[in-house]
């Protein structure tokens, strides 16, 4: 062992070049992986939540929320629906892959003032599933979002424009006086209504003001948010299996997101594989070059009676020590560089997010060691198969 370290020390520059080569390759690989990984995570952040929402209801032919005062019904996507018990929300929240579920109560009736059918969606304003399926505070285009005051409504922009509504207007509608707190444009959503209100208010409207006759006033739609676009199909299947009557309505944009993520995954695996292959080849090449340079010395030692096995071990250890030292230096350097670049206020680097993936470090060690062993194989075989005199003669 003492000769191995002596060897490394004596061939100082060769050792330094070799270790530096490993270190630079490691830094390069870790930087690329860091950028690729961070970008993948960022892309995933967007794609994972693309289209990951849907609604569940039970369509029916009959009107299950009748009233002598109002000619209306609970509905979803243009069809009448059954009323659902609130326990169903808890059940669906527990389905594997579901991130959030919320209750929604949607009702429409003919209104004499507007001389048209007017719909209202009662929503749980604190729920994520509501924000993705119905409405979010960011969708307010004028006025304000629900402030907790009683009798507040939000009007959908198209309806407000058609009927010249503005924030602050007071309307006599749904059996009471309501205030338009804000105008919203929620875009294309599974649940669209002319007005939105907290679900408790809509329940009060149906139960106490319109005196509807219904099994309960909990909800008629369950809003669901899925954890990841890639599991959405599975979640839908699980929910359908809970009750065959369930209608599930989803936008299919989660499917392209799912496909894009699969493509990113494959590219990422391919890129990582190529980078690691480069590391193995690079380490093998670096070591092989260094070993071949000192092959004459190996021949001399062999002529002095050093056994082939001890020389082969010598070759492997020199190779392994250099690779471990190089990768260690490279990891430390990469860590420092990633920290530095991550905090650098530079327009070129600020567009990248650098994150060191610690899980790859053992893999880099393992692969560089494989490279080092691979590099040692050829010289080791030559040591065993070539006579000392031939080695000396061929490496003058």
């Amino acid at each position, binding site marked *: 062992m003492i*000769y191995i370290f*002596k*060897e490394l020390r*004596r*061939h100082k520059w060769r050792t330094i070049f070799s270790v530096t080569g490993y270190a630079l390759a490691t830094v390069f690989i870790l930087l690329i992986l860091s950028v690729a990984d961070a970008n993948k995570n960022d892309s995933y952040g967007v794609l994972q939540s693309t289209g990951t929402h849907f609604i569940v209801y039970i369509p029916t032919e009959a009107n299950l929320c009748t009233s002598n005062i109002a000619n209306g019904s609970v509905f979803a996507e243009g069809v009448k629906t059954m009323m659902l018990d609130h326990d169903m929300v808890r059940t669906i929240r527990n389905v594997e892959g579901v991130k959030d579920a919320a209750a929604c109560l949607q009702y429409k009736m003919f209104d004499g003032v507007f001389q048209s059918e007017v719909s209202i969606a009662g929503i749980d304003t604190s729920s994520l599933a509501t924000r993705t399926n119905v409405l979010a505070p960011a969708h307010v285009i004028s006025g304000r979002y629900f402030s907790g005051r009683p009798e507040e409504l939000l009007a959908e922009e198209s309806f407000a424009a058609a009927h010249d509504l503005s924030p602050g207007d007071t309307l006599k509608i749904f059996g009471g006086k309501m205030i338009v707190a804000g105008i919203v444009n929620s875009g294309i959503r599974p649940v669209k209504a002319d007005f939105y209100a907290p679900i408790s208010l809509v329940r009060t409207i149906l139960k106490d003001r319109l005196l509807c006759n219904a099994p309960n006033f909990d909800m008629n739609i369950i809003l669901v948010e899925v954890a990841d676009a890639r599991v959405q199909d599975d979640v839908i299947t699980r929910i359908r299996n809970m009750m065959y009557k369930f209608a599930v309505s989803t936008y299919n944009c989660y499917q392209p997101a799912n496909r894009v993520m699969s493509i990113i995954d494959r590219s990422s695996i391919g890129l990582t594989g190529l980078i690691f292959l480069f590391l193995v080849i690079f380490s093998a090449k670096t070591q092989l070059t260094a070993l071949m340079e000192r092959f004459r*010395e190996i021949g*001399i*030692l*062999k*002529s*002095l*009676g*050093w*056994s*082939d*096995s*001890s020389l082969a071990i010598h070759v492997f250890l020199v190779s392994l020590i250099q690779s471990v030292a190089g990768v260690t230096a490279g990891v430390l350097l990469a860590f420092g560089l990633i920290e530095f670049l991550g905090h650098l206020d530079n327009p070129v680097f600020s567009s990248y997010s650098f994150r060191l993936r610690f899980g790859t470090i053992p893999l880099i060690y393992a692969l560089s060691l494989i490279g080092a062993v691979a590099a040692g194989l050829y010289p080791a075989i030559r040591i*065993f198969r070539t*006579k*000392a*005199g*031939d080695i*000396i*003669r061929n490496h003058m």
Partner: protein
Amino acid sequence: MNNYKIECISLNKQYKGRNVLITAVRDVSLKIEKGEFILLKGRSGAGKSTLINLIGGLIAPTSGKVTIDGFIVNQLNNKSLSNLLLNRVGIVFQGFNLLPTYDIYENIEVALAPRGLSKREIKKLAIPYFERFGLSEMMHLLPEELSTGQQQKVAVIRTLIRQPSIILADEPTASIDDITAGEILELMRNLCNEQNVTIILATHGIVPETIADRMIVMENGKVINQ
């Protein structure tokens, strides 16, 4: 069991040139007794170094065989050949073959290291040789910092210190002054006489024939006189 320490039987060695086969040793057969001092003479390119390397098992013959104490050297496995080179055969190379990044003491040390000697034992063995050859003050210099003659002395020390029973010396005095050359030859002669060491000394220069028990002359790879 014969009485010969070394025997070469119909030994041939050919090297592949760019387009031709170069015959370095041609049908050499010779017998060398234990404790014999052989002067192997011939011009440059006569095949002396190749013959030395063949006898030491450093290269394989194209045909024929070399035996040492009845063992066929060119059929020994790697381990046995290493043992032979470590314990019984010492070779002084024409080009010295010193390790360029090791100082001259370490060059001696690595020759003894495989025997498992301690640093103290190695030092005890090495110091007298360095003193005898006037290299005591230079032990920690690199080979390139020594003159050619001094390097040759180190190569000789590296062989002698291992006390082999066979010394194959390829031009061991070519680069050193007459006085030191005389001392080396004298030392080898004494080893022959006192310790029954077999010596084959290849030279194309002027070495007194009287130092040897026998002279073998080579020309164009052939032994023409023995």
